[in-house]
């Protein structure tokens, strides 16, 4: 008996955890559908959507650009130390452009935006929740999904590909700078090699990933904020959860999408 009891106990706890996980996933999926439907259904709030485009796109440009620049630079430097042994310097342009467009630009941009935008969305909507501003909005017959959530999710999904496209260019440029000024490559050959290797699919797959990540970041920000617990503590927890869950989901979906695109 004293052996069975603890085992049952563990099973029960595991089962309860699992049920809780399913219920959270279920609620999240419902929330996502609700948000998607309200992106499409009028009324639209073009001014709010525009604001979010600027907030998410324009104000994230610096942080995403810097990340891409240094990632491209360090890639060139690192791959040189590896490839120099085989006299294969020419592969460096290839490594830089493939890594940046397929993986690094979308994933790093996604993670940076999760920290910058996901957190601020969760804090803003969470504060509106705990101060009853969301309830007030509802009683004034404005649907908070359409007014608050749809513009953010839409802007995140559309703007992240734009950011990542810019990051692609800046990242390749970072590799170019290190290649030409530090490693003494011929600039024309470097550009030629980059251009020869890169395929439309590399860039497109990265942009599709970016759209998915943009959706994840804004959705998790909205979801955690909207379901924020009470008080300042609730908003704090919502903000942390938004960033952590978005980051993990980005890495998981990155793997899944890579599998879908390249296998």
């Amino acid at each position, binding site marked *: 008996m004293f052996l069975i009891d603890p085992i049952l106990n563990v099973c029960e706890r595991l089962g309860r955890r699992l049920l809780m996980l399913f219920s959270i996933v279920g609620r999240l999926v419902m929330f996502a559908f609700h948000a998607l439907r309200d992106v499409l259904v009028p009324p639209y709030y073009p001014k709010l959507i525009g604001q979010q485009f600027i907030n998410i796109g324009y104000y994230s440009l610096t942080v995403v650009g810097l990340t891409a620049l240094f990632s491209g630079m360090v890639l060139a430097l690192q791959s040189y130390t590896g490839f120099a042994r085989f006299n294969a310097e020419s592969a460096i342009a290839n490594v830089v452009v493939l890594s940046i467009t397929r993986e690094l630009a979308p994933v790093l941009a996604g993670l940076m935006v999760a920290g910058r935008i996901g957190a601020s969305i969760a804090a803003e909507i969470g504060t509106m929740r705990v*101060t*009853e*501003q969301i*309830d007030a909005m509802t*009683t*004034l*017959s404005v649907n908070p999904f359409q007014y608050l959530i749809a513009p953010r999710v839409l802007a995140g999904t559309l703007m992240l590909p734009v950011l990542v496209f810019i990051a692609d260019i800046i990242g390749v440029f970072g590799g170019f700078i290190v290649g030409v000024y530090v490693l003494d490559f011929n600039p024309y050959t470097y550009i030629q090699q980059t251009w020869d290797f890169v395929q439309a699919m590399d860039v497109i797959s990265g942009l599709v990933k970016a759209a998915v990540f943009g959706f994840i970041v804004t959705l998790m920000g909205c979801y955690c904020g909207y379901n924020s617990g009470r008080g300042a503590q609730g908003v704090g927890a919502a903000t942390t959860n938004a960033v952590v869950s978005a980051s993990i989901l980005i890495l998981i979906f990155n793997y899944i999408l890579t599998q879908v695109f390249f296998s």
Partner: protein
Amino acid sequence: MKNFKIEMQGVKKSFGSKDVLRNVNLDVKKGESLVIIGGSGTGKSVTIKTILGLIKPDAGKILVDGQDVTNLGGNDRDEYLKKFGMLFQGGALFDSMTIWENVAFGLTQGQKMSKKEAYPIAIEKLEAVGLKESIAQHYPAELSGGMQKRVSLARAIARNPEIIFFDEPTTGLDPIMADVINDLIRKCVSELGATAVSITHDMASVRKIADSVAMIYEGEIIWHGPIEKLDNSGNEYVDQFINGRAEGPVKF
């Protein structure tokens, strides 16, 4: 039966293991001013939020104009909510918008009225609560607590709703301004024909604005009657409450 504006039948609501509303039965007649009194944390705010559908009751039925609204959703709910104005206990002003945009929010965003049309209405409502046009372009954080409360009140009445909920309208106001607000609530009922449900701890305010009074205790309405009967309700809980005595049946 027909002239009840709001009917609550056996409404129950728990948060986790805490039973907040055990069994609320309450009728509000059309065009009357009802005041709900009761101790702190007894579920007064929760009661009016269930009527608005902001909190879903666990059991029971809520009828407004004879229509069952307990499980309204989507567009029906948006339409339904146009009947209501609500002053939240904490004000709940939108801190990213200016004062006049707050007051006009239900008009400009809820009903798509143009800003040009909505602005004078917002100013008129602000003046009704004793605020000047000069604060219209300020942000809520720049106002004092009592002024924020009044802005919130102006927002609640901006659409001339049929039913208005006032959650502690005079708390935090000076006695003169409190009386101005009492008059305003009375005016909403007598001139606009609105049905008003107010929550207050201020007995002077109760006597001024109420047609009838309901007392909530331990999640139930334990007394409901016209204001004239308040002083001889024959209910010891009510007596203790309105006279503010520490001794009596109400437990702490």
